């Protein structure tokens, strides 16, 4: 880039700003190092540190517990994938139902509103018990008794209610003029929804949807109350055998590793969205 001639005063200003920036960076680095060092010393010099290290950061226990925890994590991941697909479908269906217009759809809208009220309100763990132990208690033919199937059902019911509200917010955020324009072009209600409203709505709510996805990653483990052994339950089993908390730390780190790609995907989606909308503004 070719710069226009810069006055001496402006060069001084730039030099001064650069110096200030360097100084800020230096202070930030020193303060971070000092703080981290002090924290490290406080923790490792504390009287209880040898026991905490033994009971929370025990490499031997970590190695021994890893295979079982990984086996549990594999169950988490499989449930996560199946549940997420179902949640997106059910959530979108409920959201579209709630945004239907016209008096004829009042019962459907009320049903959808009731659904979100009920399943957003009820604590997940209680829903898990009701479905996981209550439904098989009926002893009906053909009703599954598997903890994984019943647990996934409960997850889908709860999270669909959250996701439906996210979708609804997205649909409502599309300006009415978009809809009016679509209808004036001769599109039917259904077509304008599918071709104009939903593409914008979904793009706009992608970051909060990914946020719910991260929350789901950790919550799928709750199905362990029904008897299935997920990563956290596997850690609990290992922990009870040894009275050592290291397996929990191992499981925690694995969950963080699982969440990071999703978090980056969320950042990337948000950034892309912002770029697109800004581009439109410049034009």
């Amino acid at each position, binding site marked *: 880039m070719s710069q226009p001639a810069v006055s001496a005063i402006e060069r001084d200003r730039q030099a001064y700003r650069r110096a200030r920036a360097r100084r800020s960076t230096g202070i930030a680095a020193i303060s971070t190092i000092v703080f981290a060092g002090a924290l490290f010393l406080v923790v490792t010099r504390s*009287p209880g540190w040898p026991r905490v290290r033994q009971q929370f950061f025990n490499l031997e226990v970590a190695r021994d517990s890893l295979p079982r925890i990984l086996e549990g994590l594999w169950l988490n991941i499989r449930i996560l994938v199946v549940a997420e697909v179902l949640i997106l479908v059910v959530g979108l269906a409920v959201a579209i139902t709630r945004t239907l217009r016209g008096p004829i759809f009042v019962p459907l809208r009320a049903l959808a509103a009731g659904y979100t009220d009920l399943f957003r309100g009820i604590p997940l763990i209680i829903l898990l018990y009701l479905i996981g132990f209550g439904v098989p208690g009926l002893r009906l033919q053909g009703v599954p008794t598997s903890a994984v199937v019943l647990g996934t059902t409960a997850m889908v019911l709860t999270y669909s209610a959250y996701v439906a509200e996210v979708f609804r917010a997205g649909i409502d955020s599309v300006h009415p003029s978009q809809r009016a324009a679509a209808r004036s072009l001769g599109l039917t209600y259904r077509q304008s929804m599918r071709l104009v409203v939903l593409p914008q709505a979904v793009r706009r709510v992608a970051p909060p949807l990914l946020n719910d996805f991260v929350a789901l990653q950790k919550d799928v483990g709750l199905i362990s109350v029904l008897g299935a052994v997920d990563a956290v339950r596997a850690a609990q089993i290992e922990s009870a055998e040894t*009275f050592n908390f290291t397996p929990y730390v191992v499981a925690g780190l694995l969950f963080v590793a699982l969440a990071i790609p999703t978090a980056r995907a969320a950042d990337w989606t948000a950034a892309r969205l912002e770029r697109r909308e800004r581009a439109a503004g410049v034009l």
Partner: protein
Amino acid sequence: MLSHRSRSLPVTLAVLVGAVLAAGCAAEDEGAPAAASSSGVACEKSTLQTVTQGKLTIATDEPVYEPWFVDNKPDNQKGFEGATAYAIATKMGFTPAEVTWVRVPFNAAIQPGPKKFDFDINEFSITDERKQAVDFSAPYYDVTQAVIALNSNDAAQATNLAGLKGVKLGAQVGTTSLQAIEDTIQPNQDPAVYNSNDDAKQALINGQIDALVLDLPTAFFVTAAEIDGSKIIGQLPASGNAQEQFGLVLDKGSPLTTCVSQAVEALRADGTLANIEQEWLANVAGAPVLQ
């Protein structure tokens, strides 16, 4: 302006370091009392370093179950562990009025920080691995694991370990019952693992599991008093060569461990433990040992 700022920077850092270090020094210094325990053979009540001087604080979980406690009230001195706890307290010189109960969940009992109890009595099985994290007293009960099923379930017909291989088994998390399934029965299907025996019993009644593994006294209580139409299939043989035993849990390096163990040993020697067992676990008779 600039020079003023650069002078204040080291001051700021010094304050920061000082504050953090001060926080560190304020951390309480534990570990010192532990040194006294090895030499302290005398278990005079007045010299015992209990959580509250002159009182004995005993912990157990919430809720607790029969036949170990009765009505979820440890202080009624009923049930095998309720009675045993008070016998130990008496042996150590504490009157029943000087016994305080606290409810401590499993993880709080085994965490490395300071404990709010003198000992915890809640069917803890003694293992070498666990001894690295807590102190155990001398054992107060020899326990075996047992398998129960509904009479209507095919699993009830099993007469040996091989007959349980293809069965869907369940157990409570954190118990040696679960370890017994994995080590002794080694079933073809992964066992279901529940938060509590209450959840596991519901799954058994629902038919979500075919059989449930519990300690033998609990198995007797559940089949006799809680689940109609259920039976004990049999006891499991010990997985290793060691007899499984319950011990009291104390803080690692607790100054009380030696004295509590002495009290337990004395109760075993004078027949008190046997009497309590006779009173509360009388019906825990021989169930066939599955081979």
